[in-house]
């Protein structure tokens, strides 16, 4: 990305000043990370800053890369009282994509002799990859209950226990869901998809805590070095994809009629207070509940697999956090508290210490934030920073971010060779798609360490623990 138009505020914060018709844009990250980004990142976030009712700045996280409409890693908040909009392009197809992070009472040394068996069992029991449906078949009425109830629905069906809900965003159920706003085709796509992982960059990874960065936060999160943990990265599946498709086109058509000038049609949006905006919000919230229910089911299946090999050993939800959402939140902007609709497309909510939205157990240290990496590098657990609210509406990075297109990755790596090479490093990959494995090669992603460090230095979230992969179930 050409940095000549932007000024450096501090080593991890950059600004493109506001101009008539466009708000200020902030870029978080080191010079090295920003220089490696495509110019399209600046073009896309600059377009976002032209949308009506923007509060504060539009911004990108250190892992940002070129997306569709919004850049991935883009954050923007809109004020409904000032004509602010809700954008289907600002949420995308993977509505409420996120990570369920589990901590276990198992140490790496105890798992290693059983790793192949655990890996094979997870691969057998977790439907993953294109064309892999789940064992649940829901009729239309039951699916509506999923869309209204989220993870609470899953728990009522026996997938987990109610005490987990405290550790899931929105206590497992997004308010304001309206299943009637979800099309019959979207529901048809989901009937056999509950409890499935999906494909692309979605995964279930068994990991171990390699290094603790913040002892107090790690204690609060129940993490220690050598401990086995699990990351489940997945989404609302076909239903969310169809909600995205349906509203992307309908809002793109409606924008002109509603008086919204779109700098890019992909930013398809409607005023939050309009009937069209409210309709999308009801459908999007329903899709969020679908994702929360899906991750709850997958967490339960994972727990059952571990329970078979390690009877009685706890496998608990540390946190479940989404990174493709738009949520109404109270934030202080220009000296006053305002209710804003915060779009986070490939960005994680990261409340700082003391925020009432954080479970009491973690409140003193900040909300858990998970930065998912590649299957060769692992992930980071972070905690929301006290400065994140003022800097970025309490938002942080969500992943390592792609550094190379899927097409280039496919030309450079062979899936089988990659899986074999990872096995020699002690990382077992289970997948039905060698093509998918090649596209997701660790080398196609940015340096996770750089992203996590920049996230901390930018004052968005601070590192708590680095976790490394042991086995990856790849979609």
């Amino acid at each position, binding site marked *: 990305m050409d940095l000549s138009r932007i000024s450096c505020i501090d080593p991890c914060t950059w600004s493109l000043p506001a101009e008539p018709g466009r708000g200020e844009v902030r870029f978080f990250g080191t010079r090295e990370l920003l220089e490696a980004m495509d110019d*399209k990142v600046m073009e896309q976030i600059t377009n976002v800053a032209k949308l009506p009712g923007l509060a504060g700045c539009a911004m990108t996280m250190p892992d940002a890369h070129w997306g569709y409409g919004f850049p991935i890693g883009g954050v923007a908040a809109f004020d409904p009282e000032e004509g602010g909009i809700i954008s289907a392009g600002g949420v995308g*197809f993977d509505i409420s994509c996120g990570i369920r992070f589990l901590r276990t009472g198992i140490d790496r040394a105890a798992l290693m002799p059983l790793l192949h068996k655990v890996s094979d069992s997870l691969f057998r029991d977790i439907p993953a990859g294109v064309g892999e449906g789940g064992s649940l078949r829901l009729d239309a009425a039951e699916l509506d209950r999923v869309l209204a109830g989220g993870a609470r629905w899953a728990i009522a069906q026996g997938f987990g226990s109610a005490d987990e809900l405290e550790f899931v965003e929105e206590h497992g159920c997004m308010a304001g869901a309206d299943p009637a706003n979800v099309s019959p085709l979207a529901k048809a796509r989901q009937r056999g998809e509950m409890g499935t992982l999906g494909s692309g960059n979605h995964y279930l990874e068994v990991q171990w805590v390699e290094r603790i960065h913040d002892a107090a936060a790690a204690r609060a999160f129940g993490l220690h070095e050598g401990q086995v943990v699990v990351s489940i990265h997945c989404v609302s599946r076909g239903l969310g*994809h169809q909600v995205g498709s349906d509203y*992307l086109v309908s809002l793109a058509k409606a924008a002109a009629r509603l008086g919204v000038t779109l700098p890019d049609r992909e930013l398809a949006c409607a005023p939050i207070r309009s009937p069209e905006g409210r309709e999308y919000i009801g459908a999007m919230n329903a899709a969020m509940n679908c994702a929360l229910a899906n991750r709850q089911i997958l967490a339960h299946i994972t727990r059952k697999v571990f329970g078979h090999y390690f009877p009685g050993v706890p496998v608990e939800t540390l946190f479940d956090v989404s990174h493709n959402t738009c949520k109404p939140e109270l934030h202080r902007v220009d000296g006053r508290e305002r209710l804003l609709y915060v779009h986070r497309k490939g960005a994680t909510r990261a409340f700082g210490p003391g925020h009432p939205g954080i479970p009491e157990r973690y409140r003193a240290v900040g909300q858990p934030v998970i930065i998912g990496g590649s299957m060769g590098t692992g992930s980071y657990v972070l905690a929301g920073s006290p400065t994140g609210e003022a800097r970025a509406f309490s938002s942080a990075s969500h992943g390592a971010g792609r550094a190379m297109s899927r097409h280039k990755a496919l030309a450079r790596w062979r899936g089988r060779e990659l899986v074999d090479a990872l096995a020699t490093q002690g990382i077992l990959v289970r997948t*039905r798609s060698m093509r998918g494995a090649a596209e997701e090669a660790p080398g196609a992603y940015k340096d996770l360490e750089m992203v996590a460090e920049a996230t901390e230095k930018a004052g968005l979230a601070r590192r708590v623990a680095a976790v490394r992969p042991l086995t990856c179930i790849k979609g």
Partner: protein
Amino acid sequence: MAAATLRTEHAYFEHDADVGIVGRGERVEDAFVAGAQAVFALVSRLEDVRPLERIEVAFEEPDVELAFVTWLNRLVAESQARDLVLGRFALARAGARWRGEAWGERWREALERGVDVKGATLTMLSVKPVDGGWEARCVVDV
């Protein structure tokens, strides 16, 4: 309405996170068919997919660019809802009315598994005449 099934080619263009697809053909309908081939070649190897089941899609869309996205999204949605992988496509147009068909089969072990295509986006969307024929392109989310 005459169905378009011949004289098509598909290709891809670079996009950081997702995939840019291109369909080219003699007529707009041919380019759309090629676009569908580009999408489903990401899902599996087209030549291995047997035309055992047929689906129909019909819609009305006067905006030719939105028609391309709608065509692709309907195919993606219908194939997933019916648990099918598609390999052959045909499309006919009468003004703003579009009527298409696609053939494929249920997933089986022998089929290569690529990636789920979640939907076609409006990013880099264009449908235009090129070199005496038509070209349709957009980014699809995978």
